């Protein structure tokens, strides 16, 4: 959203102040929700890179969160420090993302969606079946919270600030990435891959990179998730979470920097608001998404932008079938 520079700084400062002050007025469950929001935002930021910038649908983001979570759980319950888990999970998720995307992106555009769908099924099976490693459906419990430079994050408030810190780092890194030539190339990929290619943008390589980085961020979120909930089991990382993350990015506004923050907030809070209706919240959420996509595919932020700037020129997107030319 393009607010005036001064207004942006003030709004940003206010938001940060709110995030820092919020936990002090909340009960432990409220603080847990805030931490969960931070963790989900990290995963959504990753998916936003893949979907919002490179224009690819990944249905395996939850699997990468799972890979990160299990890496953290297995390492820290054996006494390893959390930063080792961060390093390993990030590298692992990046590599797997690369391997998965490489064949899929050689072919048609939408194959990645199906490949990630199948991969998500495979990962769930591995997590559930390989009990010698993951303890299967019994899960891994008593996952410890880290001590950062002598400061223990055991208490809910302390762990929340830890999550917030990681989120701040991830946001800064992603922001830097988006402003770099890579970010420009990603935007070009999404807006007009044919033109981008004719300008020398290696679309395959950049798309793959966006997907791999996005998956790596999923892994980072997972490493944070494990000590947050302190007990993990396979069903938490099944397709349901992948769908959830996808919808988060869409609802917030895919391709916008702040989209994931907003989308994660909606997604984490919605079940709480709709607590009275129990199972209905998913139905309501799904309906909401369908209506939103029909009316305003650029999500809530896109909607807000459109309300602020009704005369904004909408350039029609070229339909994928077209090769960019008329007949001549």
């Amino acid at each position, binding site marked *: 959203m393009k607010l005036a520079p001064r207004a942006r700084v003030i709004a940003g400062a206010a938001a940060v102040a709110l995030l820092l002050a919020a936990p002090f007025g909340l009960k432990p469950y409220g603080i847990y929700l805030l931490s969960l929001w931070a963790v989900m935002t990290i995963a959504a930021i990753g998916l936003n890179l893949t979907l919002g910038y490179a224009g690819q649908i990944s249905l395996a983001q939850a699997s990468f969160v799972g890979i990160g979570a299990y890496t953290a759980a297995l390492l820290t319950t054996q006494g390893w420090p959390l930063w080792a888990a961060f390093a390993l999970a990030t590298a692992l998720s990046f590599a797997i993302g690369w391997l998965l995307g490489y064949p899929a992106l050689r072919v048609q555009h939408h194959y990645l969606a199906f490949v990630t769908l199948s991969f998500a099924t495979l990962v769930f099976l591995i997590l559930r079946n390989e009990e010698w490693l993951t303890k299967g459906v019994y899960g891994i419990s008593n996952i410890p919270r880290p001590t950062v430079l002598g400061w223990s994050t055991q208490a809910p408030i302390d762990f929340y600030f830890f999550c917030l810190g990681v989120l701040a780092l991830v946001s800064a890194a992603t922001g830097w990435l988006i402003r*770099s030539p890579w970010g420009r190339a990603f935007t070009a990929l999404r807006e007009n891959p044919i033109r981008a290619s*004719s*300008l020398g943008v290696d679309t395959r390589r950049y798309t793959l990179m966006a997907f791999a980085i996005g998956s790596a961020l999923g892994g980072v979120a997972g490493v944070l998730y494990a000590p947050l909930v302190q007990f993990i089991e396979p069903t938490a990382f099944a397709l349901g979470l992948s769908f959830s993350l996808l919808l988060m990015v869409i609802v917030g506004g895919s391709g916008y920097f702040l989209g994931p923050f907003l989308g994660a907030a909606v997604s984490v809070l919605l079940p709480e608001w709709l607590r009275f209706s129990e199972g209905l919240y998913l139905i309501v959420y799904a309906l909401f998404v369908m209506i939103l996509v029909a009316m305003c595919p650029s999500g809530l932020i896109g909607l807000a932008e459109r309300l602020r700037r009704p005369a904004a020129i909408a350039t029609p997107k070229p339909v994928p079938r077209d090769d960019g*030319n008329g*007949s001549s």
Partner: protein
Amino acid sequence: MAALLEVRNLAKSFGGISAVADVSFDVYAGEILGLIGPNGSGKSTLFNCILGQLAPSAGEVRADGRPITGMRPCDLNRLGIGRTFQLLQVFPQLSVRENLILAGQEHLGSMWSRLAGPHDAGLTGTANRMIEFFRLAAVAEERAGALSYGQQKLLDVAMAFMAGPRLVLLDEPAGGVNPAMLVDLRERLREINATEKATFVVIEHNMEFVMSLCTRILVLAEGRIIAEGAPEAVRGNRDVIEAYLGR
């Protein structure tokens, strides 16, 4: 004089329909080659085959003697061959300057140097020169989608030149541009051709534009070359007139 681009026996069919059949020609460094012909004669298809958007059914394309048939467009760009599209293709959400920087950044260094290097890939200077040259200074910070059609066209052409290509294929650059800007466009192209030693191949329907800009003309009809030569010679050629007007 060695040819910059050699096209040999290029053919392209879609199913049973032959769009381009047995086309051969050379493009020499420094010239402005015009490619004209009635609608459906295969001009854009020919471009797409040369530039990697389509894989030709037969034939060969060589640049500086090296075969480039079927190479991906992004790789061709790095060899110094660029293009513009018939349907306007700028990046509407990016500013004019950002569009230009994007157009030039992939030419420099590697992917990793681009990540580690400055945000503008060192191209702000070049982009500013382009903005000056194409007189887009007033709208340099605007989103490209907000520009007028004629301005977007100029930006489109400017983008094709950001990487300093030696050969640019322009697909109907004059389409939809008002006469005043057309004169401007032609002057810009002539200047780049002279100072940057850039070679052009131009598809156009606007006869006046083509005749006044190009040094040599090829005429395509039903997928084949039916005439070639200096503008005046082609203009008076019987076959060409018949191809346009029908028998």
